[in-house]
């Protein structure tokens, strides 16, 4: 009886180990909350982008040139220069800021990347293919009041070599956004967001 029970326990243990090892090998996916914070390492990720966008959108909407204007001013985005040590597509930051401000109605935008396409399309319309009454009127585009531009910077430092069990590295990001008055050339608003993170990794591994 005892032998029988021991055998059953052994079989159960083998099955449990097998199940555990199979579960360990299986690929899994899970949905992440895009509004939450997820960091696998110290490099730039979507959580950082969201934080930068939230802070700077709110600040820009509350800025004097935007908040005190009788009608929503028009801006053109000249992009965010990437001054970090990572290949980051910074257009994601300006796209999200633009989307949020368009939704709130605080700013209006003209699209710089679409300028060539606008010209091409107008040329096509005036080439004789489009009925005259349906052609866009030339010389009616709106002009921008402000230029939106910015810079994303980073500083990364490793802990100096010494006897220790973990190696540490911190990375600091600073994102500055600016609003320049197109007529006067005056810098009328600027704000920045700072983020810093430390990564600690074991030096001894198997």
């Amino acid at each position, binding site marked *: 009886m005892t032998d029988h029970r021991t055998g059953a326990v052994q079989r159960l243990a083998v099955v449990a180990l097998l199940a555990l090892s199979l579960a360990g090998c299986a690929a899994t996916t899970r949905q992440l909350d895009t509004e939450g914070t997820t960091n696998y390492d110290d490099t730039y990720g979507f959580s950082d982008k969201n934080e930068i966008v939230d802070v700077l959108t709110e600040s820009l909407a509350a800025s004097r040139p935007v908040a005190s204007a009788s009608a929503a001013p028009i801006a053109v985005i000249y992009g965010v220069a990437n*001054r*970090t*040590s990572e290949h980051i597509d910074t257009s994601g930051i300006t796209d999200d800021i633009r989307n949020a401000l368009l939704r709130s109605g605080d700013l209006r935008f003209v699209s710089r990347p679409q300028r060539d396409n606008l010209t091409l399309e107008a040329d096509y319309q005036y080439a004789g293919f489009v009925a005259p009454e349906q052609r866009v009127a030339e010389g009616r585009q709106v002009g921008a009041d402000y230029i939106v531009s910015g810079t994303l910077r980073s500083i990364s430092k*490793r802990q100096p070599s010494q006897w220790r069990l973990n*190696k540490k590295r911190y990375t600091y990001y600073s994102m500055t956004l600016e609003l320049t008055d197109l007529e006067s050339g005056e810098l009328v608003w600027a704000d920045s967001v700072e983020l810093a993170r430390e990564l600690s990794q074991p030096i001894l591994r*198997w």
Partner: protein
Amino acid sequence: MTGTSMRRWPGIALALIALIAGGCATSGAIVQARGDFRAGDPDAALAVLATGRIAERDRLVALMEGGFIAHASGRIHDSIRLLRDAARLVDELDAVFVGEQGGALLVSDRATRYRGEYAERLWIRTVQMLNHLVLGDWEGASVEARQAIEVFDRYAEALQADVFTRTLLARVLHAVGEPGAAAIEYALAFEQSGGQVGVAALARSAAREAGRPDDVVRYDKALERDARGVARQVQARTGDGSLLLIVASGQVPRKRAGNLFIAPDARISFPYYPNFPDMAIIDGIRLVLDGEPLPIDPIGTRLGQVAEASLAARARQVVTRQTLRVVAKQGLGVAASREDPALGLLVNALFFLLEEADTRSWRTLPGQWTLIERALPTGRHRLEVSAGSSGRRVVIEDLRIDAGATSVLVLADGPEGLQRITPRAAPAPAATRVSEVSP
């Protein structure tokens, strides 16, 4: 010989043979890829690296070789991808892997995953900078420039001879509107080059913009030595443009294995760079623009010199590991001899054979990188570039120089001589190529 030890013989012999087989040879695919590249077939080389069997311990070597082969043959996006993976792997391997080190203690350093010499870690960034410049992506190049600064900061002494990379990254940072950072790097390049006039000419404007008057004075003094005024022609006048020319020539020297016999049956094998005669010769670059010789002041780095300094910086680490290995092997040999003198002899003989220097390295790199910047009148020009005494030359029939802009020209030495690196796509796989239709 006792019966017990007789029974252990086959097991011990098998284990040692497995260690030999597993520990030493470089992955065949890498050797073949290098051969294909040197024979003028980079696509075959890249195909071999993509499909051939690469031992995990040689993966970094394969990625670096693939990265340079793709770069030199114009497959820039492939090169960027491979070298990005190489940089990630270097980062991942920046730890002590206990199990692996245990194996290396009995076999050789070749049994461990290759982590790249300090110089190779820097050159991953150098080639990436060049990749982005070939694509006209100065901002992408500036990201790699900042990464290169981190490598320089970490291994400062070992890498100080690489004036080319330091100057290039400073030039890139200046171009993207960071004169402050550029001025710091130029100052280091100027110092490390021993006050080279060519570096001073490039550095002066960044120092002025960054508000470093002391540096400006230093550079002016250096420029006074330039009687022909060649270096001053770096700065474009209003309405002119400029040419940034980068030439990769020759071949980086190979690591060799040296042996030190500490007993008749014990040796230490170590990697070293021999003092090749060609390492002492700066490969002369000559330019002819629209039929007229163009005076230049090139800024060059011999990669062999940097590689040697980089290996020397690791010398203490190598010696410590070799000593530990000798002690471990001797200990095992003595233990085996106690069991059975014949077994001891066999173990010692096998350990003697297993002792092999880790001579793995990035071998497709050039022997020298040279940077030349010249202000040129706007318009289209015919430029002839020749390198070395063997008359390797390339003619660029339609070099376009735009006002206020810098045209980048990257040349590399290959089996067919000097060639301009221009972006191209990978060839379509054989199965999807349009085949000829029979009538």
